C-alpha cells in the first residue's frame, strides 16, 4: 500500500469465477507522508483512505467483469462504518461483493478485516463510464500487473 499516491491494494488474492466477489490485500506501510498529519505522533489510517481501499478493491472486480472496457468511478458511499483504528504494519484483507450491475452503474457491498476481525464496511455505487481520452487505461493496466491482477484472463488481446 502507498496511501500517499492512492495505491491502496497490494495484490489481488482471488476473484471468484462467477465474478461476484473479490479478495485483495493491502499492507499499511510503516512510513508514509500521510502519517505526518494523521496524526502527529499517533499514526492511524484515515477513514477516507480505508473507504478508498474498499473502492479500489471493488474497482478491480468491476474491471474484471467488463474486461477493462469501461472504468468504474466512485459515486456514492453508504452505510460506511469505521470500526477500529488501523495502524502502520497491519495487513488488511479487503473484500467486495457485487449486489447489482445496472446500465452504467454497479452497486457493491464491501468490507475489510484484520486477522478475521471486521475493520470497516460500506455499500458503494460506481458510475461505469467509457475510458477518458489519454493514458488512463494504459496506466491502470500497468497497475493491474503490479497488483497481480490476472490480466491474461480478463483483458482481450
Amino acid at each position: 500500500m502507498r496511501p500517499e499516491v492512492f495505491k491502496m491494494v497490494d495484490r489481488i488474492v482471488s476473484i471468484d469465477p462467477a465474478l461476484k466477489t473479490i479478495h485483495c490485500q493491502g499492507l499499511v506501510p510503516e512510513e508514509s507522508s500521510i502519517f505526518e498529519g494523521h496524526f502527529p505522533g499517533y499514526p492511524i489510517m484515515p477513514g477516507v483512505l480505508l473507504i478508498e481501499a474498499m473502492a479500489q478493491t471493488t474497482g478491480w472486480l468491476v474491471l474484471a467483469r467488463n474486461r477493462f472496457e469501461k472504468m468504474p468511478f466512485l459515486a456514492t458511499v453508504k452505510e460506511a462504518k469505521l470500526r477500529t483504528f488501523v495502524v502502520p504494519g497491519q495487513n488488511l484483507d479487503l473484500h467486495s461483493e457485487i449486489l447489482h450491475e445496472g446500465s452504467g452503474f454497479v452497486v457493491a457491498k464491501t468490507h475489510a478485516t484484520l486477522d478475521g476481525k471486521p475493520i470497516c464496511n460500506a455499500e458503494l455505487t460506481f458510475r461505469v463510464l467509457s475510458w477518458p481520452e489519454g493514458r488512463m487505461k494504459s496506466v491502470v493496466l500497468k497497475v493491474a500487473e503490479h497488483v497481480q491482477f490476472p490480466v491474461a484472463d480478463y483483458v482481450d488481446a
Partner: protein
Amino acid sequence: MSSTFDTVANIIAETCDIPRDTITPESHAIDDLGIDSLDFLDIAFAIDKAFGIKLPLEQWTQEVNDGKATTEQYFVLKNLCARIDELVAAKSA
C-alpha cells in the same frame, strides 16, 4: 400501469425524500421533481430490483444526447412506467 406507477412513485419518494403526494404520472423526474443523475442511480437500482429488470439508462442517455429521443419519453413518470412494463413483459415473454 397503476401498480407500476405506485411502486415507482414510492421508490422516488423514499429515495429522494420527496413528498409522495407531489409525485404524479405527469411529473418529469428531472424538470419537476429535481432528481439529478446520482439520485437516479439509486432509483434505477431500486426499480431494477423491484421489477427484476435492467433499465437501459446508457441507451436512453445516448438517444437523448444524439437527439433521437427527448427526456420526456423516458423521464415523465407515466412514460417511464410504460417502459418498465415493456421490459417486464419482454422478460417474461
